[in-house]
């Protein structure tokens, strides 16, 4: 029934498929490839060019002989190339937080899962400007021999996609079965369909929109201000010092609120106190929700670079799919030739279902092959990582559905 909502228990248990589970891709390792050098730098939308660029990526499932079974998965703001499976050596990789959990979309990628690795070769790469193996502001600037910091150029979703195209070409893949992502990853999927219409048979955009709302821009502005106002920020030149940990914490706390919904927070925290059932009459964190946000922030600071946060949120801000039509989304949509699936979540107030539906209608009135579904969910924006059953149904039907029609 479509009206049934997934109800959050008071602490949502995390259940993972272990590396030995038949539906897990098992143990995986990141790979790294240089995709831009002095002879072949990557020209950026901002007018500059950058080299060298190393890109971290992972591959699950095998590429077939014709190399026509690949699906590219695109990650969101704080994501990485580790979309599925487990690391043997998380500590050695310098990512101890990944020792006890699989990749961020492990529930969707694996043998028999939505993105079935028995059938498809699933690829995920880390975006330019991030801090997980792909060149970013914490990488060494060849001109100075020191980390780029704020000397790193402003990068865009378009730049990311052009870099991903280099990766796909480097792997010998002419045409992708699908490009898929949630949130900022969904915008990359849309950008792929706009920039390389002949090279993607389909695109799946989840909990995403053609551009961020002014409300979204405002949240990102506050996040960045929290970082840059931290005395530890030192104009981005904080490597080998403590850095703007407080600022990054606040940024993450704020962002986290936008990923949840009022009802999901209520179900999770219910105004409970951290200790006992009465107020402690203290200014320190006293409610469970405060403790939760603090915990989220602390673990985030351990694993993310503040400069990357500045650059990636800025890329999210600048993204506007209508730029392909000179500001006219209808004109932009004319460029698309891939089949498109759009999925939103009813309680997502960061990337609004209504905006996704408008994008669907825009594609529809340009006679594009578009389907749109709005999943009833209480989870807010985070639903794209949590509503696995309904997403699996849609993704599987979409990927297989085309085949049915083509074959008749």
């Amino acid at each position, binding site marked *: *029934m*479509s009206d049934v909502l997934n109800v959050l228990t008071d602490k949502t248990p995390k259940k993972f498929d272990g590396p030995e589970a038949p539906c897990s891709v098992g143990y995986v390792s990141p790979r790294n490839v240089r995709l831009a050098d002095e002879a072949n730098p990557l020209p950026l939308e901002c007018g500059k060019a950058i080299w060298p660029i190393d890109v971290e990526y992972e591959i699950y499932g095998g590429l077939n002989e014709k190399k026509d079974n690949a699906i590219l998965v695109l990650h969101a703001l704080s994501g990485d190339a580790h979309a599925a499976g487990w690391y043997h050596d998380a500590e050695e990789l310098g990512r101890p937080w990944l020792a006890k959990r699989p990749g961020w979309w492990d529930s969707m990628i694996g043998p028999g899962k939505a993105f079935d690795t028995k059938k498809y070769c699933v690829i995920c790469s880390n975006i330019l400007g991030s801090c997980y193996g792909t060149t970013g502001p914490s990488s060494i600037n060849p001109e100075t021999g020191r980390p780029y910091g704020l000397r790193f150029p402003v990068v865009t979703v378009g730049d990311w996609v052009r870099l991903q195209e280099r990766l796909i070409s480097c792997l010998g893949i002419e045409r992708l079965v699908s490009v898929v992502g949630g949130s900022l990853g969904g915008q990359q999927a849309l950008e792929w369909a706009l920039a390389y219409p002949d090279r993607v048979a389909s695109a799946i955009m989840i909990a995403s929109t053609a551009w961020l709302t002014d409300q979204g821009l405002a949240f990102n502005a506050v996040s960045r201000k929290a970082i840059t106002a931290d005395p530890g920020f030192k104009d981005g030149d904080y490597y080998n010092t403590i850095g703007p940990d407080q600022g990054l914490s606040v940024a993450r706390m704020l962002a986290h609120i936008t990923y949840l919904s009022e009802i999901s927070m209520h179900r999770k925290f219910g105004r409970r106190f951290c200790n006992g059932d009465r107020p402690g009459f203290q200014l320190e964190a006293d409610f469970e929700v405060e403790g939760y946000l603090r915990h989220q922030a602390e673990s985030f600071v351990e694993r993310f670079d503040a400069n990357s946060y500045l650059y990636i949120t800025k890329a999210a801000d600048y993204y506007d799919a209508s730029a392909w039509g000179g500001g006219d989304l209808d004109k932009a949509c004319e460029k698309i030739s891939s089949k498109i*699936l759009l999925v939103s979540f009813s309680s997502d107030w960061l990337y609004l279902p209504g905006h996704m*539906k*408008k994008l*669907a*209608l*825009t594609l*529809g*009135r340009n*006679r594009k*092959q*578009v*389907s*749109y*579904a*709005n*999943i*009833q969910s209480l989870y807010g924006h985070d639903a794209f990582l949590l509503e696995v059953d*309904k997403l699996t*149904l*849609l993704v599987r*039907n*979409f990927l*297989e*559905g*085309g*085949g*049915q*029609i*083509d074959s*008749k």
Partner: protein
Amino acid sequence: MTVNKQYRFDHKVIYDLIPTGNSVLDLGCGNGELLSKLIRQKGVKGLGIEKEFDLVAETIARGVPVIHSDLDEGLAGLPDRFFDYVILEKTLQAVKRPLFVLGEMMRVGTAGIVSFPNFGHRQVVLSLLSTGKMPVTPNLPYQWHDTPNIHLFTAKDFLDWAGANNVRIEKGFSWTGSEIVPFKEEESALAEEILFVVSREG
């Protein structure tokens, strides 16, 4: 709740009515079966609108484009006369704002195809007279309190609407329980279900 749709004759009639290669919007497309046939076998450019998530997922599985939306919210975003045909197959009686939905159908389509259970069918009327209760028939199988058919109407009701709104009845068909016959107003009490093809006057 899913509307009980027994496609005893509508699918076949609609399939035959729509010319090859036309563009079609199916309002309340269900599981996409009709659109799928039209797309595959008649090269139709099709789009469905459906409000039930499970049916949207089934339509997607058929490879048919579909937008998850409630017809009562209208079709804003779709241009005037964008489709050759707009289909309302046994859906109108289940919407909250039937006249608004009909208006939207006439706006985005060059022609409309509307099928519905005829509340003026004599078995329905006799059932009401003889039992004193809301009719329950094979075609209207629900109790008064659990029916998705919240706006039941008769052939004459529909014709009144058409007359008042400059809508021309291009064609009409009746399902009499055993065969498909051309619609005749004077024999409308014999029609269990009715299908009209409509367009704007002038």
